[in-house]
Structure formats: structure tokens, C-alpha cells
């Protein structure tokens, strides 16, 4: 399957990328292409210009400074998964990255592309929201709480570029997800982090509006980060996705179960 015709550009600087995107109404950014290219092959998207962001040095690099782990937007999932810096700072984040798709896709797909796309079943949005990350763009810094604005929708303005994602290093964090047996995307994923401002619980794969925080579980787990703290607490099926993989009640049950598993697996990712 061929995508429609387009012209390919590979800028070396943010300034160059910004002037390219301003020069053509049909231009779009590309990183790993693992979401964009399949959509283009199906002619669901027919951009006239592809601006490949991977040649821009600002979008690369992994570092820790002042209790914050920063990952460049163009970093592929495989690099995050195998990074010693990420593994020692936030092991659950490295494990989450290593659970995305398959090795081939992980060698191409990037954290910036995943976060900008905000697929309701994607993994990274739950880590960004659960850890209270800051999404740094060419123009500003956006807290994760304001960044994810609904299914496939974010606070990014047209032509705005995710440059890096800054994750405050938590006391501990864990991730658990239940995958669809066909697509391997999350049907429910729960990222539970013990942060300076209490425990945060971010749920992916289930909500009608994409990734969200489960405040009832957060309150209980802030009191005590133990599985028993969740006894008697169950996710509500209101606003859960329903599709051929499962109805709202089933998804709610999975969210409850995955959250318990994320609590039990701090420092790791538990993949079902």
C-alpha cells in the first residue's frame, strides 16, 4: 500500500522545523512513523509534507538532574527500556517502555510521538500523568494534568513540537496492564506513583476520554500504599469504553485489578 504523495523534509533545528510547518497547510510532523505511516498507507491521512523531527539534536538525550528525569521526544521506546539512567531513576518507566508493542516497533516509535498522539490505549500517557510529568515544547512547559485533553487530543497547538518530557523521580512507581489478545494494546493499564504530593493513579486503555486519574484510589493509597488500602474500592463503569473487546463493567473490573497489581509491583511493570 502506497501513501499519497508528499514531500519529505528532515530539518536539523527547531527553527527550521517551525518555518517548514508554517510554510504548508498540509504539513505534519513525523517521529517514528509507527502511528502516522500506517494511517497514511490507509489514506486516513494524506499530508502534503512530512517533517521528520528525528534529525533535531534538541529532541534527543536522556538525563537526570535535580530529581527530574528528562527524556528527549525523539527517543525510541527501545532506548528508554534499555537505558541504565531510566532503569535506576524510574524502573517502572523503563519496564513500561519495554512492554510497548514488539521489538521492531520499539526500535522506531518514540515517546514524543506517543504522547502527542494520545491514543486512549497507549502506555506512555499513563506514565506521564501518573508521575505528574511536564511536557516541554518549543514554546512552553505543559503539566501532564493539562496536556491530555481527551481521546487522541492534547493541549498542543497546531505546529507545536514536543521537545522533551520531564518526569519528577517518585519515591516509587509501578505499572500493570492487561493487553488485548489481538492488538496487544492495553485494555486497562494502571500507573501508580508515590510522589511528593501523594499517590497518583493514572488509568489508560479504559476511559472514554482517554487517560485519566482515578481520584478515589489516589486518596486511599495516599493514606497507605498497600493493596489492602484498596479493599472495597472498585472503579465505576461510568465513562468506560465499550467495544468488541469488552463492555464497561468488564473494563471497570480490569481497572480495579490492574491498580491492585500496580501497587503490588512497585518498581516494575506487571504485564498480563
Amino acid at each position, binding site marked *: 500500500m502506497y501513501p499519497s504523495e*508528499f*514531500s519529505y523534509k528532515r530539518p536539523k533545528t527547531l527553527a527550521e522545523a517551525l518555518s517548514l510547518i508554517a510554510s504548508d497547510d498540509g504539513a505534519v510532523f513525523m517521529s517514528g512513523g509507527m502511528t502516522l505511516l*500506517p494511517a497514511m498507507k490507509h489514506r486516513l491521512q494524506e499530508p502534503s509534507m512530512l517533517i521528520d523531527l528525528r534529525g533535531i539534536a534538541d529532541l534527543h538525550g536522556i538525563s537526570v538532574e535535580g530529581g527530574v528525569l528528562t527524556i528527549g521526544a525523539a527517543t525510541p521506546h527501545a532506548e528508554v527500556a534499555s537505558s541504565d539512567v531510566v532503569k535506576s531513576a524510574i524502573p517502572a518507566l523503563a519496564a513500561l517502555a519495554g512492554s510497548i508493542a514488539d521489538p521492531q*516497533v520499539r*526500535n522506531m516509535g518514540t515517546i514524543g510521538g506517543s504522547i502527542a498522539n494520545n491514543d486512549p490505549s497507549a502506555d506512555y500517557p499513563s506514565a506521564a500523568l501518573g508521575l505528574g510529568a511536564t511536557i516541554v515544547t518549543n514554546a512552553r512547559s505543559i503539566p501532564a494534568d493539562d496536556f491530555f485533553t481527551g481521546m487522541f487530543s492534547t493541549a498542543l497547538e497546531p505546529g507545536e513540537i514536543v521537545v522533551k518530557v520531564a518526569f519528577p523521580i517518585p519515591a516509587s512507581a509501578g505499572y500493570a496492564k492487561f493487553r488485548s489478545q489481538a492488538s496487544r494494546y492495553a485494555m486497562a493499564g494502571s500507573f501508580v506513583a508515590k510522589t511528593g504530593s501523594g499517590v497518583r493513579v493514572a488509568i489508560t486503555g479504559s476511559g472514554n476520554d482517554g487517560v485519566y486519574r482515578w481520584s478515589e484510589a489516589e486518596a486511599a493509597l495516599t493514606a497507605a500504599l498497600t493493596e489492602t488500602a484498596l479493599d472495597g474500592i472498585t472503579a465505576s463503569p461510568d465513562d468506560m469504553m465499550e467495544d468488541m473487546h469488552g463492555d464497561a463493567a468488564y473494563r471497570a473490573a480490569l481497572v480495579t485489578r490492574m491498580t491492585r497489581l500496580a501497587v503490588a509491583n512497585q518498581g516494575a511493570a506487571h504485564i498480563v
Partner: protein
Amino acid sequence: MTTVTLTVNGQEVSRDIEDRTLLAQFLRDTLRLTGTHVGCDTTQCGACTVLLNGKPVKSCTVLAVSLDGAKVTTIEGLAANGQLHPMQERFRERHALQCGFCTPGMVMAAVGVVERNNGNVTEELVREQLEGNICRCTGYAGIVEAVMDVAEMYRDGKVSQNVPV
């Protein structure tokens, strides 16, 4: 049209291509290297897997134009000096193929598994890391055995150059 220059199986090639040309098409149609198969064409089956700078990727979902200066290894580039690569040899021994359609991609992904883990693999890990490759014939048992064999050879130093450069 854009001129792209890259190294494929150790040889530098330079071609004028449409920007939308996918790596799988570039290999099969432009270079006539038809060992790389296209199964699903939707980034799922892994039949099109090749090594890009030593790492497995699905060539049906990579733009050739983005690969200026890159190194690509296809199934045709694995055998050296008339000798099959150990992974090809073990696939044959272990009956790890039947129709053979998934095989080129499976072998390239398998080489990646051994390389990424320096040969330190378990059966569970091999199965997990071949998740991006679908085989409709074999039931995977022979494939997993072949990868375990090569991983052991790698650990024992019997495979020096797993990924050709």
C-alpha cells in the same frame, strides 16, 4: 523525487526515489531483493523485518527516503562466503519453517533477539521478543528451539559475527 544513498548488505547504493517509497518496496522493487516479504503491510506480521543499523525494524513502515547514510541488512545479506548464517542453518535443522513466508522476517528478528540479549535468553524471553512476528504454519516450537541453539552458540563464542556489518 529524492536521491537516497545507503548501504544495503555491505554495498553502497544510490537511487532516485519517490519520497513515499517504503523501505520494503525499495528493497523488493528498486533493488530486486525479494527475500524480504510483505505479509500484512500493516506493521503487524513482521514478515518484512530487516536490520536497520543492526536493529530489527518492519520495513513496510519505514520510509526509504529517511535512510540516507543508514545501513540495512536483509535476509540476502546474512549468509557469508557461501555459508548460511547460523540462524538460517538452525532454522533448517530444527524444522523452523514450513511454507517459508514468515521465515526471512523471523530470521532477522531472531538475529535481533540473540544480539540484544548477548545470547542470554530463556524460552519465555525468546517467545516474548518474537511477538512482532507471526507464523501461521509451524506453531513456533522449532523457531524457538533454533533461536535457543544460536543463543547458546553465541554464549560459547561459536558465533562471532551475529549481525553482519
